[in-house]
C-alpha cells in the first residue's frame, strides 16, 4: 500500500511541473485557504438563494433531491450537504471517508499519479474535500446520485478529490455539476477523480460544467474497468470559461469491458478548450467509443481522442465532429494505436459549417433562416447516448436545451 508520506513526497517534487497540454497556470496567484460554510439540512438546501439554485440546477443538481438517490454539495472548500437515500450506495465527503474507512486508502491516488503535474500535486498537498461514492456488490440504483462542486469565493483555487467505486455486479449513475456563483469571475478548479468499475458492474458518469469567464479548470480523471464492466462518461460544457484542459484516461483492464465517452462542447468567444480522452483496450473483447461534438462561436476547441488496442478482438471507434458557427478554431486530433493483430479500430473526424442545403430544406418547410440554423445545430448536438436510464437522458437533454438557449 502506498504510504501517505510517499504521496506527499512525490507531490512536493512536482509542484512546478507543467502539464503536458493546455496553458500553464501560475497557481501562486490563487487562494487555497479554507472557506467555512454552514452545513445545510435538507430543508435548508431548498432555502438557498434562487439564483444559486438556478446555477446548480443548470449543472444537474436539484436542491429538492427529487428523483435523486443521494446528494453531495461542496461550496468552495467545504461540504455543505451530503446524504444517500439509496440502499447499497454510500455517499461520503472524501476526508471523512479517509478517516472512517481503511479501504479508501486502497483506492486514493492509485490511478492518478500525484506527481503527474502541478495540479495533481496541489490537490495532493492541499486537499479541500471531494466525494466518495461506493455502490455495494449487486446494488442497482435507478436514481442518479447528484454532486455539485460550487465556487463562490473570488480567486479561489478549489482542490477536489473524488472517488467512485462500483462493486461487482452493481449499477450506479452519477451526475456531477460544476458551477460558479452568478457574481464569481476568477478562480481555478482542480478535480481529481478516480473511478473503479468492478466485474460486471456499470457506471454512468455525467459531468456538466457551468463556469465563469475567467475560470481555469484542470480535471484529472482515470477509470479502471474490470471484466464485463461498463463505463459511460458524458461531458457537457456550453458556458463561457477561460480554459479547460483535461484528458481523462480509461483502462479497460478486464475482458469484454466497455467504455463510452460522449462529449458536447459549445465554445463561446475567449474560451479555450483542450479536451478529449484516451482509452486503453487491454483485453480481448473490449469495446470503446468516443463521440465528440464541438461547436465554436469564437472559441478555440482542441478535441483529442486516442484509442489504444492492446489485445486481439477489440473494437473501438472515435467520432469527432466540429461545427464552426461564428469564428473561432476547432482542432480535431483523432489517434488510433494498434499494438496487436486482430483489432478493429476506426475514426471519423469532420469539421465544417452548417450546410446551406439543410438550411434551405428546413426553410422550405416554413422555418426562418435563423430557426433553421438553430434546429440543425440542436440536431448536431443530439447524440444518442446508450444505456442511460430515461430520466437521466431527459436530464441531459434539459441541460442541453437550457444552455442552448443562451449559447446559440
Amino acid at each position, binding site marked *: 500500500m502506498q504510504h501517505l508520506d510517499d504521496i506527499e513526497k512525490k507531490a512536493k517534487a512536482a509542484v512546478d511541473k507543467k502539464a503536458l497540454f493546455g496553458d500553464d497556470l501560475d497557481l501562486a496567484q490563487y487562494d487555497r485557504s479554507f472557506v467555512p460554510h454552514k452545513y445545510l439540512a435538507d430543508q435548508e438546501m431548498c432555502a438557498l438563494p434562487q439564483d444559486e439554485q438556478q446555477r446548480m440546477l443548470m449543472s444537474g443538481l436539484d436542491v429538492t433531491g427529487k428523483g435523486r438517490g443521494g446528494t453531495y454539495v461542496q461550496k468552495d472548500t467545504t461540504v455543505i450537504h451530503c446524504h444517500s437515500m439509496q440502499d447499497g450506495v454510500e455517499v461520503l465527503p472524501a476526508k471523512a471517508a479517509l478517516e472512517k474507512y481503511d479501504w479508501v486508502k486502497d483506492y486514493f491516488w492509485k490511478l492518478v499519479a500525484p506527481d503527474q503535474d502541478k495540479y495533481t500535486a496541489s490537490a495532493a498537498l492541499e486537499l479541500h474535500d471531494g466525494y466518495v461514492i461506493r455502490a455495494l456488490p449487486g446494488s442497482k440504483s435507478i436514481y442518479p446520485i447528484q454532486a455539485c462542486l460550487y465556487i463562490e469565493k473570488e480567486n479561489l483555487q478549489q482542490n477536489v478529490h473524488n472517488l467512485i467505486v462500483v462493486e461487482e455486479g452493481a449499477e450506479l449513475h452519477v451526475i456531477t455539476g460544476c458551477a460558479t456563483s452568478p457574481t464569481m469571475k476568477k478562480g481555478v478548479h482542480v478535480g481529481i477523480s478516480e473511478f473503479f468499475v468492478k466485474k460486471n458492474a456499470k457506471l454512468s458518469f455525467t459531468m456538466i460544467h457551468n463556469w465563469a469567464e475567467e475560470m481555469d479548470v484542470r480535471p484529472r480523471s482515470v477509470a479502471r474497468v474490470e471484466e464485463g464492466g461498463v463505463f459511460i462518461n458524458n461531458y457537457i460544457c456550453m458556458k463561457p470559461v477561460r480554459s479547460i484542459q483535461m484528458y481523462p484516461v480509461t483502462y479497460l483492464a478486464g475482458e469484454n469491458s466497455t467504455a463510452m465517452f460522449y462529449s458536447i462542447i459549445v465554445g463561446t468567444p475567449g474560451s479555450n478548450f483542450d479536451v478529449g480522452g484516451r482509452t486503453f483496450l487491454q483485453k480481448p473483447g473490449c469495446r470503446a467509443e468516443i463521440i465528440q461534438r464541438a461547436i465554436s462561436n469564437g472559441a478555440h476547441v482542441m478535441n483529442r481522442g486516442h484509442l489504444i488496442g492492446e489485445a486481439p478482438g477489440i473494437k473501438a471507434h472515435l467520432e469527432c465532429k466540429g461545427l464552426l458557427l461564428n469564428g473561432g478554431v476547432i482542432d480535431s486530433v483523432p489517434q488510433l494505436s494498434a499494438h496487436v493483430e486482430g483489432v478493429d479500430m476506426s475514426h471519423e473526424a469532420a469539421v465544417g459549417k452548417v450546410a446551406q442545403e439543410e438550411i*434551405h*430544406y*428546413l*426553410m422550405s*418547410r416554413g*422555418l426562418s*433562416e435563423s430557426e433553421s440554423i438553430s434546429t440543425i445545430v440542436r440536431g448536431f*448536438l*443530439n447524440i444518442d447516448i446508450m444505456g442511460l436510464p430515461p430520466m437521466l437522458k431527459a436530464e441531459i437533454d434539459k441541460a442541453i436545451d437550457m444552455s442552448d438557449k443562451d449559447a446559440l
Partner: protein
Amino acid sequence: MLLIDDLQVELGGKILLKDIHLEIKPGETHILFGPNGSGKTSLLMTIMGYPQYEVKRGTITFKGVDITHAPIDERARLGIGMSYQRPPTINGLKTRQMVDICAKNKVDAEQMAQSLNFAEFLDRDVNAGFSGGEIKRSELLQLKAQDPDLIMFDEPESGVDIENMALIGKTIARLLQKDLGRENAKSVATVRKDRTKMGLIITHTGYILDYVPADKGQVLYEGVLACAGNPREIFQCIGEAGYEECVKCNI
C-alpha cells in the same frame, strides 16, 4: 394562382431557363416532362426560391403576390411546398420533429405517419439512410403535415417499388384534391368545384398519371417550355417519337 411570366434563370452564370410562361390555376395540376438536364428541377427550385437560381428576367407571382425575389421561407408560408428527389439528411433531427415543424405542431404525427406506413421511421433522423421509396414517403408525410396550396413533386415515382406506388399515387391525388373524396358525402360536382390546390409534377415514367388526373402537360426542352397539351397525349408522343420529335409539334 401561380403565374410565371417571361422568366429567365441562371445558375453560376449559365442560362438554364428562358422565356418561361406558366399559369397554374387553383384546382389544376400540371405535369412537367422533359429529358435529363432540360431544367425541370431548376424550374421547381426557382419557384421554391433557391437563391443559387438567379432570376435574370421576368416575374413569379403567387396568390397575387410578387415572389420573384422572396426568400424560401416566405414562399413556404405563402403556401408553396415541394417534394424533393434527393433531400439532405439532417442528423439528430427526428422525422417526428420534422413533421411537427411542417405542421406547426397542429397534427398527430403518429396517426399521419400510419396512413403512409411510415410510423416506424418517426424516431429516425430525417432521411438518414432512407431508401428511395422511404424518402418519397418521408417527403409526402412532411407535405401532408405542411398542407401547402401549391405542391411541386420532383419525380415522385423514382425508386418506388410497385407495392408502394399505389400508396404514393393515391396520397398525391389526395393532397392535390384530385381524388373524388366521396367519403364526405359531397356530390362529385361540388368536390370538383371546391378544388383549390395546385400541383406541378415532374415525371419520367408517367406512372403518376394512373393515379392523378392531371389537367395539363408541358414539355421542358433545353430550358424552354416547348409545348403544352393533354398530358396523356404528350406522354404517348414522347414514348413513340421521343422528346425531340415531340417538341416540334404543338399538340
